[in-house]
């Protein structure tokens, strides 16, 4: 493992933007990684934090959200855990159907699933793990010198 970040956030939506930038600034190891972090990871982390604060913690300002970031050579993993009772991620409808596409909400989990390489919940449903595969520095070096 190259780097690990673990911290807790107050249940405040205004913290999300700064948190996302803080994490990205500490995980961007090269240009290719930065490109994948630019939107895929930023959006997914913002979605996970939003879900944790609004749905998981029920917008309760006394609750907290735990953020764990693990940067490996080939992947970046973020685990976001709230204090809620959890939810069933299989019960989220497809937001891209003709009927649902006109709805205001319901795209958060869909975006996470499409922008990250892996999204999994714990059994309780109050902790989501996001995995983004990164091109290894060895492979990038090989490609650059080829």
């Amino acid at each position, binding site marked *: 493992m190259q780097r690990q970040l673990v911290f807790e956030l107050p249940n405040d939506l205004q913290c999300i*933007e700064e948190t996302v930038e803080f994490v990205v600034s500490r995980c961007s190891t090269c240009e290719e990684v930065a490109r994948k972090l630019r*939107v895929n990871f930023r*959006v997914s982390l913002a*979605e996970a934090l*939003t879900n944790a604060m609004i749905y998981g913690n029920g917008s309760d300002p006394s609750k907290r959200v735990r953020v764990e970031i693990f940067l490996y050579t080939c992947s970046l993993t973020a685990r976001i855990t709230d204090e809620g009772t959890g939810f069933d991620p299989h019960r989220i409808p497809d*937001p*891209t159907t003709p009927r649902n596409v006109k709805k205001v909400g319901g795209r958060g989990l869909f*975006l996470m699933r*499409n922008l990250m390489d892996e999204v999994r919940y714990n059994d309780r449903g109050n902790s989501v793990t996001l995995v983004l595969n990164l091109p290894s520095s060895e492979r990038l070096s090989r490609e650059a010198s080829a």
Partner: protein
Amino acid sequence: MAFKISSQGEVTVVDVDGQLIVGNRQELKQKVLDELEEGRRKFLVDFTDTGYIDSSGLGVLVSLSKKVREQGGELRLSSLNEDLRTLFELTKLDTLFRIADSRDEGLASF
């Protein structure tokens, strides 16, 4: 982050500087609704200087588009970079909005 409102003839242009996310979506919504209340009906939201948009940001665009249309107007988008366009394509919102490649093209489309 900031939303800059300006007028180009009949079109109200909204520049999204930074992120359009859960923490600031209400600010954008209020600014557009204020303009709508003042009688403006043509809106162009320009994303030239936008970093990323989350699902709340996409949602507020859907909501505003609906409200503007209910008043007989239209809200269009412009200058989505490749990453942002991917978000609209993934969510199929590219089928809901008229999206121009550039601000000038967006202005000319009204």
